[in-house]
């Protein structure tokens, strides 16, 4: 955020006779990056779109897409990604804000923040292992807690059952990614001028009112960042699903990125896998564009 404020150009001005140097130099500076990006990012993106229109090297138009929406596994995956967003997003925003506000006034808050932020540092593969571990029948702390409060009868390995696998994973990613919203909100809180609070105090505003009338509106840019990033991560969620449930049982916790992996590298149906990737990317671009737009407005 810090570096985005100034918009004006700072091109180097050196006076007249250097037009040649000024057009050649940027080219030389840009060539290595553009070669790599073109070969390994841009060309593959275009190629994936085109592959999605083919099946066994035969052009089939939008057939792969139509086929996808006819398949139960894909519509399931789509619904799961949607549910994931609906549940994860509000809770992650809520906990992030709560922790940012509370830990600011608590002794040892900085250390607790660092520990909570660890979720953003560890590999998601390890995250998937952690989920299986805490939900395990015997070794898991969740079931120990249930037994402790007398609900031992419902204790089980939560990731193994169709009706609880998905929600277990969603709760897990809330645990993993809330560190991000907490840190972004913490940075946002630091940026609110203290005078605003002093003025509110003089006017006799309650703490609750101050929070809703000053803190929340001032944190709007932070909220946009948190919502965008979380949306993009949840849309692309893959590692934790692969490790913790492998999309199962029976597709109960499958998601788009996982379906794409199965189609591409288990079924080797590149056409259909490319179609999933294209849908995923279009959704990503859509969300990103919408959010960037909102950010520009506010």
């Amino acid at each position, binding site marked *: 955020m810090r570096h985005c404020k100034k918009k004006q150009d700072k091109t180097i001005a*050196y006076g007249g006779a250097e037009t040649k140097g000024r057009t050649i130099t940027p080219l030389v*500076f840009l060539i290595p990056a553009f070669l790599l990006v073109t070969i390994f990012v841009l060309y*593959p993106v275009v190629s994936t779109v085109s592959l999605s229109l083919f099946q066994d090297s035969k052009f089939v138009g939008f057939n792969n897409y139509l086929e996808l929406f006819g398949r139960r596994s894909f519509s399931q995956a789509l619904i799961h990604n949607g549910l994931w967003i609906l549940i994860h997003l509000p809770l992650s925003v809520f906990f992030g804000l709560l922790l940012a506000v509370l830990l600011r006034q608590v002794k040892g808050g900085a250390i607790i923040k660092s520990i909570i932020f660890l979720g953003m540092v560890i590999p998601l593969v390890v995250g998937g292992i952690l989920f299986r571990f805490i939900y395990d029948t015997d070794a898991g702390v969740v079931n120990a807690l249930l037994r402790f409060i007398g609900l031992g009868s419902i204790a089980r390995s939560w990731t193994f059952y169709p009706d609880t696998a998905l929600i277990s994973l969603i709760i897990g990613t809330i645990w993993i990614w809330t560190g991000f919203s907490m840190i972004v909100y913490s940075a946002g809180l630091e940026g609110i001028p203290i005078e605003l609070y002093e003025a509110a105090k003089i006017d006799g505003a309650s703490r609750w009112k101050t929070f809703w009338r000053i803190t929340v509106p001032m944190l709007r840019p932070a909220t946009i960042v948190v919502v965008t990033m979380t949306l993009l991560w949840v849309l692309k969620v893959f590692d934790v699903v692969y490790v913790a449930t492998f999309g199962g049982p029976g597709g109960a916790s499958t998601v788009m990125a996982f379906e794409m992996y199965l189609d591409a590298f288990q079924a080797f149906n590149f056409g259909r896998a490319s179609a999933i990737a294209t849908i995923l990317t279009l959704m990503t671009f859509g969300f990103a564009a919408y959010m960037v737009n909102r950010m520009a407005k506010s």
Partner: protein
Amino acid sequence: MKIRKSTIIAHAIAWSVSLIWIIPFLGVFMASIRPFDEVLSGWWNFESFHLTSQGYLGAWNHPTAPLSRAMLNSLIVTIPSTFLPILVAALAAYAFARFKFPSRDLLFLLIVLLQTVPQQMVIIPIFNLMLRLGLLNNYLGLILLHSSFGLPWMILFLRNFFSVLPVEVEEAARIDGASYFKIFYKIVLPMSLPALASIIALQFVWVWNDFFFALALIQNPRLKLATQAIPVMIGRYEINWTIISAASIMVMIIPVVVYVVLQRYYVRGLVAGAVKG
């Protein structure tokens, strides 16, 4: 001193919510140092308590996925994938920040767009390309892919950093006859160390933690990376929590150390708008 009631409540809520975040880490650590049968009756259970190095040794020398090799493999991929793209990105970012050239803003918009591209969107053509070039099961392919995939957000991040650096020093150097490249590496790069630290921290952790690209391009068991070793260790039915916990600790300790050492830069880079992944 009078302590307000609300302060006490705030502390109570903060500590109990924080506990939820801390317990899984504590659990996996405890599980990694205790024998399997004790872990099965709960790592929070201290009726019988023994320490064991079985977990760490078992993961390090695992028969099908030894972490000793997998972690070395991960380092071999991660270090070049971190440092190679930095110079490339810095050069391009400098051009975007300081020079005017045709269709600059259009190209920059393309870069911004490309940084949100999901891994799934490139992997099939990349897989085909690597197959044709003989770079499947070859770290060079993976390193090139990681380097290139990291470029868009690095360019964006560095351009934003460069464009608020004071331009006067560079102009003075130019008048004194320094070449553009000399200005770049003698003046601009040294002033950009904080931004470069952010990039190193994030890219290192990101490449180390990556699972999807490795899964697609590295299938030879001897060449598998650390993140790939963990799913192999899970096995089909019973999970040996002592070994898998120790493995998890060892695989995450590397990014955690990077984070602890470069914490300020790590957080700054992430918050500054890395719309990456």
